């Protein structure tokens, strides 16, 4: 098997809420004991509902927030132990594409400076050479050199996301975290952006971590998928494995909730009872057990670990395996 590009081991992020004078401190377990392996060239999807820790996972992997505990290995090197300057230099190899391009691009900078910023930071390109390189990048993402001196407010959302993509790819990174790259865009533009990302991946041999709550989008782009619930990874498998052979009750419920674009189609739907517990005090044992139809007494006391149920399909459930 090939060498992993990115590996997370027991990655944990707890946020401490400082209470008032008389309330005790509370801990939000945004990310709890997450293990992941991403291989070069693949698109690794991460799905889960709002607040399940998807975005925190992406940020911790790139050390945009400091994880509380755990390791992130990038080509075998633990990013969490790098000193500030080494980490700063390593950043050219991994980039993040943000959800909302209206917020992720500085409104006071023109396109040349926005797309040129990573190049100025990590290379000696300046002046005309820089402008030419930026123009080439713009053309690659479907814009043109005419846009070099324009400002973000002069573009549409889809064009802005293209600018953000050019910026993320300016340094030929190896690994890109795509944090809901299309959810701030119109449906008609979403497909264009997804196809652009796919083309660029094929062309540049990129590895993606694709974070989304949109199951059909994740199914469309991913090679493998991790399903998250309350800060934990509950199942990891190939796209087929997750969509056609889900083992975890939560994954099964999630998959059955995706609409099928066919009014004649009928299938059994798993309707979950209750709502997601607060990450402030997650239930003991398996965090899904209060809503699980198949829960065993064991589920309320012992936390299940991810186990391989064959072909690298990992499930964290006492019922499976």
């Amino acid at each position, binding site marked *: 098997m090939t060498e992993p590009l990115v590996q997370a081991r027991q990655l944990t992020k707890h946020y401490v809420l400082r209470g008032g004078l008389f309330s005790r401190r509370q801990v939000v377990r945004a990310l709890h004991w997450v293990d992941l392996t991403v291989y070069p060239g693949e698109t690794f999807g991460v799905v889960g509902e709002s607040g399940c820790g998807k975005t925190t996972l992406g940020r911790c992997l*790139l050390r*945009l927030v400091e994880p509380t505990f755990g390791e992130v290995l990038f080509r075998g090197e633990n990013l969490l132990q790098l000193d500030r300057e080494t980490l*700063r*230099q*390593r*950043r*050219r190899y991994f*980039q*993040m594409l*943000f*959800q*909302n391009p209206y*917020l*992720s*691009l*500085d*409104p*006071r900078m*023109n396109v040349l400076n926005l797309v040129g*910023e*990573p190049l100025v*930071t*990590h290379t000696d390109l300046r002046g005309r050479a820089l402008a030419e390189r930026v123009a080439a990048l713009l053309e690659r993402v479907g814009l043109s050199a005419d846009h*070099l*001196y*324009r*400002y973000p*407010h*002069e573009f549409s959302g889809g064009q802005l996301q293209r600018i*953000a993509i050019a*910026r993320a790819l300016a340094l030929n990174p190896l690994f890109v975290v795509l944090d809901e790259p299309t959810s701030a865009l119109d449906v008609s533009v979403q497909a264009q952006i997804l196809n652009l990302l796919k083309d660029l991946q094929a062309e540049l041999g990129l590895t993606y971590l694709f974070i989304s709550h949109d199951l059909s989008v994740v199914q469309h782009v991913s090679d493998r998928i991790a399903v998250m619930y309350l800060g934990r990874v509950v199942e990891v498998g190939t796209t087929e494995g997750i969509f056609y052979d889900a083992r975890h009750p939560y994954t099964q419920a999630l998959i059955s909730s995706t609409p099928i674009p066919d009014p004649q189609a009928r299938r059994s739907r798993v309707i979950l009872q209750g709502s997601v517990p607060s990450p402030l005090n997650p239930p003991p044992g398996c965090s899904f057990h209060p809503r699980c139809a198949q829960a065993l007494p064991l589920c309320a006391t012992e936390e299940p670990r991810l186990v391989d149920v064959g072909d690298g399909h990992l499930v964290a459930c006492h019922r499976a395996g």
Partner: protein
Amino acid sequence: MTTLIQPFLERWAHEHRSQLEEYRLMGRAFLRDRLAVASLVVILLFLFGAIFAPWLTPYPEQGRGEPKMEEQFQPPSWQHPLGTDELGRDVLARVLFGGRTSLSIGFLVVIIAVAVGTPLGALAGYFGGWLDEAIMRLTDIFLAFPSLLLAIAIAAALGPSFTNAMIAVALTWWPWYTRLVRAQTLSLRERSFVEAARGIGVGEGTVILRHILPNVMTPVLVQATMDIGSAILTGAAMSFIGLGVQPPTPDWGQMINLGRIYFISRPWLTTFPGLAIFLVSLSFNLLGDSIRDIADPRTRRAVR
């Protein structure tokens, strides 16, 4: 000659066309705001009067303070449009020369306050933690005193003079900029372009210089414009109580102080410097208001 620089000009215009368009829209909105235009005209008139004072009045040496006792207390006339003061000096000349000190105090106080307050606010807001605590507690200490009282205390300790009055007023002023910039920085830090810049590997200092400061400059500029008026007023107050500019150097506040005992019988001694202070500080306030509306494209349309 023009043909030589023309390509460069065209290139520059091409690269800055978005900004030029923005400035054009702002200029239009400004011209539509009659009050703001009037304020700017008043300010420019006083600036012009202060800068060219020696050439505008036939009595420049009186403006600088030389007495002419035989012309004491003359009411306004053709020869002395605003009358003469207790030492026989032309009041118009004194008001023009006094504008030099009063306007300098206004501008310098605000420049010092912005120069000190802005970086501190950006550091406090961006890094947070103990640095934020330290800087904000320091501003709290300064803001805990009534500002004029603090300025009086500092000026009294340093000794009355133009420079000391300016330092004293600036010291009471910078915490407002620190608070303003800190609040702006806190909200900018949550915008993902700051996180995006860090994710690219841009250093912390560069993030502040390249992304934070340019984005806080508009509110700072608005605040600074409005504050020039208040700083002139405070500077005049300092001179009025004798802690600012010392005679024979003229200053509007000091002129009011010296003329106040003749207030009933010779009102022109106090009225005209008072009017100058009033007009200038009001104009700066109105101008600041207008800049705030114009700088924000969302409120720009409201200006009719």
